[in-house]
Structures are given as structure tokens and as C-alpha cells.
């Protein structure tokens, strides 16, 4: 007998996908080269809002090496408007969004012309020869200003800058407020962020002129969705378009998009009959890859003196930027369900107004709506605690759903299947040494220390597994959220897993191998996972919103179970036994009680390949496919604690320690889970302390490069202490919950809460993000004035 195979799920496997990344054998889109490849460069508007009076590409065309040049008008006919799939409220205003501007530019960075040349230097140089006459138009840059009576219009044909109004309520908030002892009202600002994946976007299109087929390689998170929407936008039939997402260097939502450049490259490759490549520069990435966040959040919480939260009211203004991208209107509304977070309350009122401005479009950025929601609720819980003179952790304990109360349906209508906030919080507090740090804080206050200590807490939950297609339909999202997986057992017993998810750093190849290896009882190394090519993975909904494991990984699990079911039938036939009499363990079927009567799954695979002797009527294969559309979301949660030292003389913030305990349900690969958390926390801290897309009054992006937009480097971030509790999800057979966005969602409020906590003795109630030394110093000054 062989020894029991070590279960793969739960094992800290270093990743299969590392080998090629570590040795530079990579397949980034920009690495792709084919004979006859031409390069495309894009001229972008230097103005935030202007009428285009004339575009003249003739001088560019005369440059040696330039093959073609086009204005928006030249190509308008062959490209439809870029799609928005989520008109979230009735009457959502969806403006026309041409891939290249035709009459008007609406943000600095809006494409106005393209040049195609023999090489990228020639193409870039020739942009200088394109002449464009603009008549500047008045701009609207500020979210609140956009709704003023006399505000200039971003889309004059729409007659308003209001994109939509969305409302949802449950319970009677006014009554809750009337009964309350304390009402805390705050306005928080979610600054505009630039997602900054390290790989800039890139597109390569290779046409096959004879058959009218195209292969489009793109640094995208969504090859499947992109394929459908390219067909819709260009009129090229879907079955003539193959989309490949090769190695993709990070996305964080910014590559969850149908971008103008993808449409332009496809259409021009068709027009010219030549392979074409476009590669974004970092400056273009900052200008024209969608941005994230950018909201003004008004939030009010009503509570009793003992800390019981009675109700919550949220009202948002959400910046859409100049155009709607794929999901823009839906992002803030995705957060609507998450404001009540882990707390029980009797009333909830939510409203959101989407607003157009003359800035880069906004869409999903890591967490997409949920970090914004979590920030507001976790910030105001701290403020409420301060108001009541309660410890912020005690306030949370008083209000959260207790572990014996799951499943629990929140006031926002979501049913959380499982969770244990007590366990995660207790563990985090112990690791953090909470009481000791509180004592040090008091000590520093007593000694009037110029460097103060602040402690920030965030007890978050997340809504993962963006899927239930029915729910998405109710939310007016155009597509479903299912995910596909198929498994092929090859004649030699090796296994191919094909997934519809499209990873860009998340380690799906390794995790999906672990899942399949366990169900099939085959070695981890015998499993290959393939993805990111619509010709291979013919169905999928791709990767975003922490959905991959909960939907895609579970689909792999289910497909593997189907393979085993079918293999069992074949094994029973071969062993001349009843199916019910077979045990399946360690990759082999045995007749109960007679262990020598045994067929391995590999033997079964070969038998089905040969198919000399199969049960009557059985198809000769043990491949299986599963398309999973879960009924519900999953809800990981955790407690993040941050201790920050704030220098009251310089305004400098230093994170002294960062501890988190997350509960992401069953863990498939602890190494990957920890890595995802680290990266997420780093992005959340970046929002809290460093990053902001800044525009000047004319609407120019001031933070147009990595020299001005401060993506934190290694010395800017602390060590993170991470740990876990494990409360399996009950809504899927693997018990998994998802982890990709947890760190980002949790960390931003934890850090800002720490900063504000340090400054409370000075009368400071808020510091606007990012909490730069200047902002901290400013808050101290106004705080001191206020309390003077």
C-alpha cells in the first residue's frame, strides 16, 4: 500500500508559475513580436475640456517610417462607443464614448489621433507632427461643483452632469435617529487613486487576412468579457476574435476594462491588414488607464448612550470622471451593501449620485466600492466610540453579529453564511499587545511627548465571489457572474485543468492544481492549469472582485468531482463491481473489502482513451466541465490593528506595528493567502498615507509619472504580522471565502484611525487622506484652534 497522499489543499506550496517569471522566460504582451509588426502611438489631449476644431495628420504621414495616421473622425465609423455594462439606476445617463475623440475632448489624456509606424520611436516622434486646433471649453473638476446650477457641462448634449441617483433603504432611519442619544455625522473624502499596476497596458493584434480572423493579445484581466465586447463595439464577429491574456503584470481592477486602445488596435490592424502593437508608457498609464475611488461620503450614525447602533445613513457623491467605463456607475453601489458591515442595526438609508467631471474615468480599483464603504463605517465607529468615551473595540463588540448568530441577514439584505468576529479580534489583540500599547499612549499624553502614539482598529468584512447572476441582474448589470472550469484526463493519466478565470499574479495555477489534485487523487505535479486564451478556455467571466477562488476555484472542484463520478462508473465496469461497492481514495477505486481489486484513476483514464471496453452507451472520455453560478456571496472578515507614531512637530506618520488576523475560510495555499494580504495591506496603506491623483485648476494631471505619484517603496512600509482564524464558508463545498481585496479594504481605515487616534487630544477629528505630513500638520493646527 502506498502511504496516504498528503492533502494539497492547505499546503504552503511555492508556486508553479514562478519558474518562468523568475528566469525571465516571460510572455508579457509587450514581449510579443511577429514579422511585419507595426507600432501604434496615440496623441492625447493636453486639455481637460476643449472643442476639436481641426486635426491634421498630413505632416505626420510624410515622416519616413510612418505607415498611417488617423484622427477620430477618420475612424469613427468603424468603432462604436466604448461599453458601459452597469447602468445601475433607472435613467442612468450613458454618454457616447468614442475610442478616439471626434468633436470634443473631455479629459486631459483623451485620445485625439493615432500614428502607425515601423517602430515605436518613429511612431512616438510622428505624434509631434500631428496638428490639432482646440477651442478650450470651461471645465468642471470638482465633484460637488459639478452639480451646481451653473456648472459647465461635461457632456453638453446630456444637459446635466448628474449620471444617476440610486437609493435604497431598510427600516426607518428617521425614527431611529429620533430615538438616539448620540448622532455622529461626518464627511469623508475618498481621494482619487491611480491603480499603478507595474506592467503598463499593451495590446498586440495579429490579423489573418484570408479568413478575417484576429488574435488580440492584451494585458487584460478579462479576456472573455473583452472578446464579447470587442465584437459588440467593432462589429467583427465574436467567433473571428481570439483574445489572449498572456502573462499579465498586475491589474488591481485597472485591467478590468474594455479600453479604447484595444478597439483602436483591432480596428486599425484590420484596416491595414498588418499586425499592430500598442504599448502604454507610464505617463499614459497615469493619464488614461482608469482611476479609482474619488467619492465624497456623508455618513451619519445614530446610537444609544450604551453604544448600541440604531441606524446608519449614507449619502455619496461619486465621481465618474469624463466617461462611463465598463462598470463605473456600479462601483459605489457595490459598496451600498457593505456600509452596515459586521454590525447589527435596525435602519439603513443609502443614496448615491454619480457625477461627471473633466477627469480620467473612474472604475474598479482593488476592492471596488467595498474599501470606500469599509473606510466610512470603520472611521465613524471610531468617532462614535470617542463621542461616547468608549474603547473602540468594546463599541464594536457591543454591536457586531455574534458567531452563534450566523447565518445572519444584515439590514442591507445580505446573508452572511458564517463568521467569527470574536475569535479573530481576540487573537489580533493578543498579537498586537493592545493593552500595553494603550498604556504607552497614555504615558506619552501625560508627558506631553511631541511624538504621539495612535491605535487604529478596523474590523471589516468583505463581499467576495462576485457572481450570483440573478443578483447581478437585479442590480442591472448586463452580464452574469458564473465561472467555468473543465478538466481533461489525458491518456497517460496527466490532468489538464482549464479555467475561465484569468490571473495576473494571484497564483491560480498553483491553487487550482492543489484543488484538482486533491479531488482526483493525482500528484500536484501531474496537473497543468491553462487559462487566459479564449480559444482554449472557451468560457469564462475572468478575474476581479476576489471572485476567482470562490467561483472559479469551486468550479474546478466541481468539475473534478464529475470526473471522479464518471471514472467510478468505468472502474466499476472494469472491476465488474457495483459502483456503490467502490471506495475512492488516494486516486484509486477499490472494491470494498477486497483491496486487490483496484483501478487507479490513471488506469481508468487510459481505458476510456482506448475505449475498448466501456459500459454500454458511455462516451469515451472522462472529461468534465462545470459552470458554477453560486446562489450567494462569501464573506471573509478580520481584525486589523495599526499602531502609528505621529510627530506633532513635523506631521510625519510612522507605522510602528501592523497586526492582522483574517478569516478567509478554508485556506487552499497559506503562502499565497499571506502574499495576497501583504500586497493588499500595502495598497491600503498607500491610500491612507501616500497616494493621490492631483489635478491643477486647468485639469492637468500633476501626478502624471511615478516621480510625482507616490507608490510606496520598501522603506515606506512596515513589517506586517499576519495570522488567521479559519471559519469555513458554508455556501460552497470547499469552504473558501476569497482574499484578494481583504488587505486593502481593512488597512486604510486601520491606519487613518490610528493617525486620528494619536491626534484626538489636540481636538483633531479627521485627517484627510493621504495623511501626508502637511495634512497632519494642517489638521493639528485647525484642531488646536477648534479646541482653543
Amino acid at each position: 500500500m502506498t502511504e496516504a497522499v498528503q492533502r494539497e489543499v492547505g499546503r504552503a506550496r511555492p508556486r508553479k508559475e514562478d519558474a518562468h517569471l523568475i528566469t525571465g522566460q516571460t510572455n508579457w504582451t509587450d514581449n510579443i513580436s511577429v514579422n511585419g509588426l507595426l507600432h501604434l502611438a496615440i496623441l492625447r489631449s493636453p486639455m481637460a475640456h476643449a472643442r476639436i476644431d481641426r486635426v491634421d495628420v498630413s505632416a505626420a504621414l510624410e515622416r519616413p517610417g510612418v505607415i498611417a495616421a488617423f484622427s477620430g473622425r477618420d475612424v469613427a465609423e468603424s468603432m462604436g462607443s466604448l461599453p458601459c455594462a452597469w447602468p445601475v439606476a433607472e435613467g442612468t445617463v450613458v454618454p457616447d464614448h468614442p475610442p478616439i475623440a471626434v468633436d470634443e475632448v473631455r479629459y486631459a489624456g483623451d485620445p485625439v489621433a493615432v500614428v502607425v509606424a515601423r517602430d515605436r520611436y518613429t511612431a512616438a516622434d510622428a505624434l509631434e507632427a500631428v496638428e490639432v486646433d482646440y477651442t478650450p471649453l470651461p471645465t468642471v473638476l470638482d465633484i460637488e461643483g459639478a452639480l451646481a446650477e451653473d456648472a459647465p457641462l461635461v457632456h453638453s448634449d446630456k444637459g446635466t452632469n448628474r449620471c444617476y441617483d440610486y437609493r435604497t433603504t431598510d427600516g426607518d432611519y428617521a425614527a431611529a435617529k429620533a430615538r438616539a442619544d448620540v448622532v455622529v455625522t461626518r464627511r469623508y473624502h475618498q481621494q482619487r487613486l491611480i491603480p499603478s499596476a507595474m506592467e503598463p497596458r499593451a495590446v498586440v493584434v495579429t490579423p489573418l487576412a484570408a479568413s478575417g480572423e484576429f488574435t488580440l493579445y492584451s494585458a487584460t484581466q478579462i479576456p472573455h468579457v473583452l472578446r464579447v465586447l470587442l465584437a459588440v463595439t467593432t462589429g467583427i464577429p465574436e467567433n473571428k476574435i481570439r483574445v489572449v491574456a498572456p502573462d499579465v503584470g498586475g491589474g488591481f481592477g485597472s485591467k478590468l476594462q474594455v479600453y479604447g486602445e484595444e478597439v483602436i488596435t483591432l480596428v486599425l490592424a484590420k484596416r491595414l491588414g498588418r499586425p499592430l502593437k500598442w504599448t502604454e508608457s507610464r505617463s499614459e498609464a497615469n493619464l488614461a488607464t482608469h482611476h479609482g475611488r474619488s467619492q465624497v461620503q456623508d455618513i451619519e450614525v445614530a446610537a444609544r448612550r450604551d453604544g448600541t447602533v440604531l441606524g446608519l445613513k449614507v449619502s455619496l457623491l461619486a465621481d465618474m470622471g469624463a466617461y462611463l467605463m465598463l462598470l463605473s456607475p456600479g462601483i459605489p453601489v457595490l459598496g451600498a451593501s457593505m456600509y452596515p458591515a459586521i454590525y447589527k442595526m435596525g435602519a439603513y438609508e443609502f443614496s448615491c449620485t454619480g457625477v461627471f467631471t473633466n477627469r480620467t474615468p473612474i472604475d474598479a480599483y482593488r476592492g471596488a466600492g467595498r474599501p470606500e464603504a469599509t473606510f466610512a463605517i470603520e472611521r465613524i465607529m471610531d468617532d462614535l466610540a470617542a463621542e461616547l468615551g468608549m474603547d473602540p473595540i468594546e463599541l464594536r463588540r457591543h454591536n457586531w453579529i455574534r458567531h452563534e448568530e450566523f447565518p445572519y441577514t444584515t439590514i442591507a439584505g445580505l446573508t452572511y453564511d458564517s463568521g467569527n468576529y470574536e475569535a479573530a479580534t481576540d487573537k489580533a489583540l493578543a498579537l498586537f499587545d493592545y493593552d500595553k500599547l494603550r498604556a504607552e499612549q497614555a504615558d506619552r499624553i501625560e508627558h506631553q511627548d511631541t511624538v504621539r502614539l495612535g491605535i487604529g482598529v478596523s474590523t471589516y468584512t468583505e463581499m467576495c465571489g462576485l457572481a450570483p447572476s440573478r443578483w447581478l441582474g437585479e442590480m442591472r448589470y448586463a452580464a452574469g457572474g458564473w465561472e467555468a472550469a473543465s478538466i481533461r484526463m489525458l491518456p497517460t493519466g496527466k490532468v489538464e485543468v482549464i479555467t475561465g478565470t484569468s490571473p495576473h499574479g494571484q497564483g491560480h495555477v498553483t491553487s487550482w492544481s492543489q484543488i484538482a489534485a486533491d479531488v482526483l487523487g493525482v500528484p500536484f505535479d501531474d496537473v497543468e492549469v491553462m487559462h487566459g486564451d479564449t480559444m482554449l478556455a472557451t468560457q469564462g467571466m475572468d478575474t476581479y472582485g476576489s471572485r476567482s477562488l470562490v467561483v472559479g476555484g469551486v468550479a474546478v472542484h466541481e468539475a473534478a468531482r464529475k470526473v471522479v463520478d464518471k471514472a467510478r462508473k468505468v472502474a466499476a465496469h472494469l472491476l465488474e463491481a457495483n459502483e456503490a461497492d467502490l471506495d475512492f481514495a488516494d486516486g484509486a477505486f477499490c472494491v470494498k473489502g477486497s483491496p486487490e481489486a483496484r483501478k487507479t484513476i490513471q488506469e481508468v483514464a487510459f481505458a476510456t482513451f482506448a475505449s475498448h471496453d466501456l459500459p454500454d452507451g458511455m462516451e469515451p472520455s472522462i472529461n468534465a466541465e462545470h459552470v458554477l453560478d453560486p446562489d450567494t456571496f462569501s464573506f471573509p472578515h478580520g481584525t486589523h490593528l495599526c499602531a502609528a507614531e505621529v510627530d506633532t512637530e513635523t506631521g510625519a506618520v510612522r507605522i510602528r506595528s501592523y497586526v492582522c488576523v483574517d478569516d478567509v475560510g478554508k485556506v487552499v495555499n497559506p503562502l499565497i493567502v499571506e502574499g495576497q494580504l501583504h500586497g493588499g495591506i500595502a495598497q491600503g496603506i498607500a491610500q491612507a498615507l501616500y497616494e493621490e491623483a492631483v489635478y491643477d485648476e486647468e485639469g492637468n494631471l500633476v501626478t502624471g509619472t511615478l516621480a510625482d505619484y507616490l507608490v510606496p517603496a520598501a522603506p515606506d512600509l512596515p513589517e506586517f504580522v499576519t495570522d488567521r482564524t479559519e471559519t469555513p464558508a458554508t455556501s460552497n463545498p470547499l469552504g473558501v471565502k476569497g482574499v484578494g481585496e481583504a488587505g486593502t479594504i481593512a488597512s486604510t481605515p486601520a491606519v487613518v484611525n490610528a493617525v486620528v487616534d494619536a491626534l484626538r487630544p489636540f481636538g483633531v477629528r479627521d485627517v484627510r487622506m493621504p495623511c501626508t505630513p502637511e495634512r497632519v500638520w494642517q489638521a493639528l493646527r485647525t484642531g488646536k484652534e477648534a479646541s482653543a
Partner: protein
Amino acid sequence: MTHISLKVDGTTYEDDVEPRLLLIHYLRDRLGLTGTPIGCDTSNCGSCTVDLDGESVKSCSLLAVQADGGEVTTVQGLAHDGEWSELQKAFHVRHALQCGYCTPGMIMAARDLLREHPHPTPDEVRHGLEGNLCRCTGYQNIVRAVLDAAEQEVTT
């Protein structure tokens, strides 16, 4: 056009290049050595870091002609006989990469760092990698990997 001669990952190349051609584009577009990626246009991200004559340099901030006569090592030249370098192994074991885009540059910068500080502290590693941005890992595992590799160098 200017004539250059350059040894890259053990092979010598002779080429005529435009004087303005950046070293990174020479490596990627002319030699097809696409293991080193480009992440920015302001020399801030470090993803293009390679080794030139024993110093790590950002190959986007250097012209190909400036490297004339030199010896370049890229991430593609690190493994010998299929055996990864200690840094490559450590990055793998420590899960110090996710999307992997910054990884070639990180590894090349870390290599330089270890040459100068064979026994760095975690803080020294963080400061030594200041010029290399990673958006995925939060750096912690990268720091661990570099410390591990330093340890290996001592014991082996």
C-alpha cells in the same frame, strides 16, 4: 548609427544602433532578451534593472552606446546549467513575487545589494531596494527572500 559591441549574458553582440536607442530597448527589441521589462518612463520603477560591469543600472536610463564595450547580465543570465541562483530560489520559496513584473529588476537590484552588504539587516534590504517598486507583494516577502539568500551565501 553607431557601432557597439556588448557582451550580454555571456554572448557578444556587434550592432549598429541609433545613438538615442536606450539600452533596455536594445536588449528587448534588438536582442530579443525580453526577460527584463519596462515599467516607467522616468527611471523610477526599477523593473528594467540589469547588471552592467558589476553595477546594477536601470537600463532605461542608459543609452545602448553608453554600454559599448561592457558586459551586461540580465535575469536571463542568472541560472547556470538549469540551476537557479540563490536569489531566484529564495524568491520562489518565500513567495516574493506575484505578477512577477518587478521580479527581474528586484532580483538584479538585490544581487547588487548583497554584493555590497553580504549580511544585510532587514532595514538595509528595504533601503537597498528603494529604487524598485513592486505593486503586488507589499515587499515583506521580498525582504525575507533577500535575507534568506544572504544566509545561503554564508553557509554554502
